[in-house]
Structure formats: C-alpha cells, structure tokens
C-alpha cells in the first residue's frame, strides 16, 4: 500500500531527519514506529500525508507517486488518511462536535450522516459528554481522544497516529488500542509512532525501529526493544 524508496529528508540547517529510508507497508497491517526522541518518526509520517516533501527518494501510496502529486490532488490524498497529530491540531474556534463534523463536511457528508457518526465516535473514546465543549476547556488526554475520533470518523483506508496515547492513562490507552485493533481488523492500515513500550510489547505487531533517521530494526510480531 505504501512504499518508500531511498527517502532522505534534510531540514534547513543541515539536519538529516531521515537518511536513505526504504520500507513497505502492506494493506491492513498494524505497524508500530518506535525509536528515541528525534529519531525521525514524525518526519516519516509527515512525508506520507505530504506535510513535508522528501529531499531525495520517492513515496508511493496506493500506486501513486506522492512526491509528484499536483497541488490540487493533495486534499484527496489526505481524505483517505486519518491523522492523529502529536500536537492534536484541533480547531480552537470549534466545539468538539464541530471539530469532528468538520472532517466529514470536507468530504461532503450529509447532515444526517454527521449527526449519526460524530456521537458514535465520541462514544467510542468516552467523550460523549464533552461534545459541546471547546478544545481549550478540555484536559490534555481529552484533547488527544478528540483528535483520535476525528481521525477515525471518515473510515479512512490508512490511519497515521503520532503518539496517540502520550497523554493518556494506561486503562484509557488500552481501551483505545483495542479500538485501533478493531479498525485494523476491518482492513484499515495503521501506522503508529509511540513510546508506550508495554503496549508495543504486548500487542505483538510489526515493529519498525528508527534511530538517527535510519531503520535499525523491522520485525513482525516484535517487542518495543530487543
């Protein structure tokens, strides 16, 4: 489904965030991206949904070369991907409900669909009672869960989650992991960057470890560290 060919990403200032990375993710896979702080996990994800362009190399998504995508095709790429950002990126002027509804409105969903789907995903992450709050009135963990519901509401073919449980307690984290597992079993590919070693080690999924911008390990049914 996704292939990276010799991808290098240099940030201005000579920082090599990714160094000649080649990897392939298959449809329906559940991939954990692990590695120390600053290893390049977020950068790899940003290349897939085109927040950043690779300095060298190609990124292929469903047979399409993302690197060569025209500017007006980018939105349609992004609609196929559900994203959980490390810094949440909720719209501050919209309530929780509106934030999630917005992701649907973009795709032209009908009012009826929205009214059905939004409470459903909020229920899944346990935030049905916060639907009408503004993001800045939520706790850190609550904001993170809103960003997760927004990522799954459109039933995307790919979910990219950057540290989706960093602000959550273990119980809530496990609840969400089961949710992701469910979704993945319905055929959705999931790429998740995380530092939750207990979760990674217990789930026995594919683990890709980055360090200094290079892939140092790629293991089916892996654990957090060797």
């Amino acid at each position, binding site marked *: 489904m996704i292939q990276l060919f010799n991808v290098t990403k240099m940030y201005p200032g000579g920082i090599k965030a990714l160094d000649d990375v080649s990897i392939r993710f298959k449809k329906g896979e559940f991939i954990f991206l692990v590695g120390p702080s600053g290893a390049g996990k977020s950068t790899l994800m940003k290349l897939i*949904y085109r*927040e950043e362009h690779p300095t060298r190399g190609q990124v292929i998504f469903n047979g399409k070369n993302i690197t060569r995508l025209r*500017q*007006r095709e980018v*939105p*349609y*790429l*992004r*609609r196929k*991907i559900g*994203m959980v*950002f490390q810094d949440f*990126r*909720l*719209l*501050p*002027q919209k309530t929780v409900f509106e934030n999630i509804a*917005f*992701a649907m*409105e*973009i*795709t*032209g969903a*009908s*009012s009826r669909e929205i009214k059905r789907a939004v409470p459903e995903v909020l229920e899944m992450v346990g935030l049905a009672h916060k639907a009408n709050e503004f993001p800045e009135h939520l706790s850190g963990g609550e904001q993170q869960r809103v960003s997760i519901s*927004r990522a799954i509401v459109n039933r995307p073919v790919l979910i990219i989650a950057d540290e989706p449980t960093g602000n959550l307690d273990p119980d809530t984290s496990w609840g969400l992991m089961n949710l992701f597992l469910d979704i993945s079993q319905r055929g959705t590919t999931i790429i998740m960057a995380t530092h939750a070693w207990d979760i990674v080690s217990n789930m026995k999924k594919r683990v890709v470890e980055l360090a200094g911008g290079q892939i140092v390990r790629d293991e089916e049914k892996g654990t957090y560290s060797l």
Partner: protein
Amino acid sequence: MRLRTICYYFREALQSILRNSWLSVASIGVVAVSLLILGGSLLIVLNAGNVADNLESSVEVSIFLKDEATPEQIKEIENKLIGLSEVAQYVFVTKEKALEEMKQDFGEEKDILAGLEEKNPLPDTFRVKTHMVEQVAPLARQFEGLAQVDEVRYGQGVVEQLMALSHWVRIAGLTTMVLLGVAAVFLIATTIRLSVFARRREIEIMKFLGATNWFVRLPFLLEGMFLGLAGSFISVAAIYYGYFLIINSIQVSLPFVPMVSDRDLIILLMEGLLFLGLLIGAAGSMISVRRFLKV
C-alpha cells in the same frame, strides 16, 4: 455544488464573524472609516469642481462694435456667433442699454453720469459666453481683427487665473482621492491579513484534514464580503445623511455657494461605495488566505 455545502459556507462565515466578534468589529470599523474618508473627499472634490464650473461660466467675452457699424454689419457678426459651436449664449447690448446698466451699477452716485445721454460714449456690445473657459481666449482672437469691431475684452488676467485655479483644484482633488483610495485599500487589506494571520493555524489544520483550497477560502471570502459590505454600509449611511444635513445648512447660511445636491448622482456615488466595500472585503480575504493555503 451541493446545497448542504453552500449552507456550510454561510454557517461557517457567520460563526466566524460572531466568535471573532472583536476582530469583526475592528474590520468593519476600518472599512467604514476608510470609505468615509474616501467618500467624503469625493464629495468635496465634486463640490469644488462644481464651484469652479460656476465661476468659469460667469466669464464672458465683450465684443465692442464701432459707432459706425451698420445694422447689416451687426447682423453679420451675429450670424458668425450663431455658427460657432463653442458659443454657449450671447446677448446684444445697445449703447443705450449699456448706459442704463452703468447707471444702475453706480447706484446713488449715478448723478456723475448725468448728461451723458445726449452724447453717449458707450459702444454697442455683444456679450458672449463659451461652454468652457479654455475657449474664451481663442474666441476673442477670432473677432479682434474684424472691421466693424472696435475692441474685444474678456478680463484677460482673471480668466487665466481662473483656468489655472480650476486646473489646480482638479489635479489636487484627483491626487487626494487616488491617495486616499490607495490608503483605504491598504488599511483594509492590512486588517484582513492580520485577521487571517491570527487564524493561520486554523487554515493549516483544515488543509491537513484534506480540505480543498476553495473549501477553506469560501467562508473567509463570504466573511470578508460581509465585513466589507457592513463597513461600507455604515460609511454610506453616515455620508448620505451627513451630506444632506450639511447641504441644507449651507444653503441657508451660504446661499451663494453652489452645492451639488443632485440626489441621483449622490445615490450613484453611494452605490459605488457599497460595491467598493464588497470588493475590498472579497479581495482582502482572497489575497490574505492565499499565503496560508500552500501547505
């Protein structure tokens, strides 16, 4: 485009206006002030032009005829006047009538002129008005050489001065208006850019969620148009009522100053201002959003 999506655009625009109420008021205020300044100066220029026109039209050419001119010769000159397109109007003043007028001008001192009736030293005269003040001097020159004409006069110094003055009023007025127009557009663009700048993160997030450029842009566009229209509406209302108030008091206290009070013209001008406000709002948001769409 689906109805649902159109509804979405309007709802978004309205919500944004209400939730950023402070920013909205500021933008409306800037548009209102700018257009108020622009519209006000437009009216001033219009009136200055009107006053100048009025002054100009009071300039006339006097063609003094020789005492020995026969009625036929006088008729000849009249025909020549009728044939000239630059002549707006003319009157023939006999020497008797000229003396009469002179006496009236002298008022209580008309005794000075007593006894002149017998030996009237004043000539027969054609008094001619042209359409434009620029045509005065050439016209005068056409008649200067003629046999029956004694002398042609048109207050040489004054006409040149008037022409220069009205020329200057027009140039100054136009420059002021252009400068003010540029200033207004600059101010409004700045405000809208600032307001979009304060929300650049939002635009970025929308783009990351897969919104097309137009999906992001349209609510901002509607918002900008609404703010522009609201601002220009305030300024138009203020100018309209303010202007007729001023006109009325000027017509009472300064009846000799000719004011532009053609209601249709003023309304046309106001419509222009409203349209300008709409345009400025729309252009402002389009330009401002563009910068942040490149994600």
